[in-house]
């Protein structure tokens, strides 16, 4: 991520706003845009940590899942009271709890794993994902393998129409909000001392340490921020899905898709996840709708071709293409 310019962040916001207005204004785009919102948010949150440190967290989905569980359990708990609190309060609590749980887990796990270098970190965190899943299944907390379902609680406490609005409209906007907050966080981070320190440790950790960068703490800080946002994204997802089961919640495919999107867009760039998310989401969706059952047979080679054509992602490719020109400075 280049430190020189923040202009492209503004453009990102504009693009996102356009997407948002299209979503609100043209109902027919709803189905595809809510997928896109999710993918973009997913990989942008992922990117907040990975883009800034070039460390990859394979257990990243654990934070999303924990957020789903935390948010869902909170909703279930609050709505089990005899007079349920107002919806806004319930949702706010769900997000807060989701974020806090993820934050705590990130602190605990990060404290150990952030000391690991490179690929060790990456795959050590896969244990996080599997471990948490097995813990939930093994101890039976949060419904264990039977899953956690909150539809009934919402329907009973509010009414059918509110339930429908919350799950199928509001949830998408909440997910979008998490994305917007993520961009804001990235912006705040990269223009601070923290940003310089991260940029340095991304290049050479030992040298950065000698240059005065507290590498462990800096990595931990962004890891925790990213995890917290991932938890909140999970809360939004829970409200959308109204149910969660361990195998689906902890599917590694989330992480892999986040990586795929980041790579397609350009790893370590802010614009990458948005561009990658748009490409991946649209491609996957259009193929799914046009060739039901055959879409993966088409998607897989398309991905392979893109890897070969744009190994540094679309943003990386554009940057090279427009080297030295104004456009380059927008492609952060």
């Amino acid at each position, binding site marked *: 991520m280049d430190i020189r310019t923040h202009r492209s962040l503004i453009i990102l916001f504009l693009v996102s706003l356009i997407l948002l207005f299209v979503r609100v204004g043209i109902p027919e785009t709803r189905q595809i845009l809510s997928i896109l919102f999710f993918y973009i948010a997913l990989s942008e949150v992922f990117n907040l940590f990975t883009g800034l440190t070039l460390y*990859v967290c*394979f257990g990243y989905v654990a934070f999303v899942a924990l957020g789903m569980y935390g948010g869902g359990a909170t909703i279930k708990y609050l709505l089990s009271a005899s007079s349920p609190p107002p919806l806004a309060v319930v949702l706010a609590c769900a997000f807060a709890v989701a974020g806090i749980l993820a934050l705590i887990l990130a602190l605990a*796990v990060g404290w*150990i*794993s952030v*000391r*690991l*270098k490179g*690929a*060790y970190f990456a*795959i*050590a965190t*896969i*244990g*996080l994902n*599997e*471990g948490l899943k*097995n*813990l939930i*299944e*093994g*101890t*039976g907390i949060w419904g264990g393998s039977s899953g956690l379902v909150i539809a009934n609680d919402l329907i009973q406490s509010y009414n059918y129409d509110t339930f429908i609005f919350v799950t199928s409209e509001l949830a998408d906007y909440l997910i979008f909000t998490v994305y917007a907050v993520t961009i804001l966080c990235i912006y705040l981070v990269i223009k601070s001392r923290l940003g310089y320190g991260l940029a340095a440790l991304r290049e050479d950790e030992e040298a950065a340490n000698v240059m005065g960068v507290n590498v462990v703490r800096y990595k931990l800080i962004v890891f925790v921020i990213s995890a917290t946002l991932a938890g909140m994204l999970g809360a939004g997802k829970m409200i959308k899905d109204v149910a969660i089961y361990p195998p689906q919640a902890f599917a*590694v495919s989330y992480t*892999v898709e986040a*990586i*795929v999107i*980041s*790579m*397609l867009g350009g*790893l370590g760039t802010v614009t990458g996840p948005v561009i990658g998310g748009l490409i991946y989401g649209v491609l996957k969706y259009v193929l799914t709708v046009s060739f039901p059952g055959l879409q*993966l*047979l088409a*998607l*897989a*080679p398309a*991905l*392979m071709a893109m*890897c*070969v054509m744009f*190994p*540094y992602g679309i943003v990386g490719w554009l940057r090279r293409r427009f080297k030295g020109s104004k456009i380059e400075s927008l492609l952060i």
Partner: protein
Amino acid sequence: MVTAEYVIFVTIAGVMLGTFYGLATIGLSFTFGILRILNSGHGSFVMIGAYISYWCFALLGLPPLVSSLLAFAVGFFMGFALYHGLISRVLGGPELISLVLMFAFGIFLQEVAKFSWSASPRGFTWGLGSINIFGYEYPLTRLIGGVVSAVIVLVLYVFLFRTKSGNAIRSVVEDPEGAALCGVNVSRVYALSLAIALGLTVASGALSTLFVSGGIEPYMGDPYTTRAFAIAVLGGLTSPFGSFLAGLLFGIIENLSYMLLSLANVGNPFSMTRFLTFAMILLVLLIRPQGLLKR
């Protein structure tokens, strides 16, 4: 009642399971160690191996030991083709691009398998029976599978550390330009390594039918991928032998801690076992960040 015999028996079962976990992981750390490729499509290659074993048995009556040779050859060939067709084009790029590439290729394999062989799960039986260990019956197929896995790993070790090609591979890992300066044909070594790695993985798929000879279907490989990644880390990721050792540990711990946990009667012992195993990974990494076997 937990008797000494019982403990030993469970441990032996764990060792056999562990050697298999180890073999199923070795290909992964081999590709990563040498080509810096995170083979996220690992499980799909295991699946191909299992199908090969199935077809060989169903059509020709070949035992898995023979079909694993064939599986190795198939994987070897795939490795060469994959290298020249795709990997060589992205080798200079960022490390993770290979992950995306292999992920896509893994999906592609699954879909091709589904369309060629349908999604119906298949199974077959060797019917070799079992042997008696301390009064407990233990399946012979598993014993064979475990021993063969160990032998393969030994052969690989000798190849890597005692032969010229092995040295060449290791030198390329260290510094490709330096290796070229010694006269090593670097791109051939890359291709060869990928071929060997995928050969091993596909072969481990064929051997997997010695352990589980049912449920062979296009998507059977996915759990192998996650598992292999976790084990590979425990073993130090770039060291094939480290991951073999780690797989061994994984198997033993899984079986032994089940025994202990079921005595203690907390939660569902088996799922807790998994949790503990993964928690152990974090712990091990805390103590030995480079993995079990330091290179």
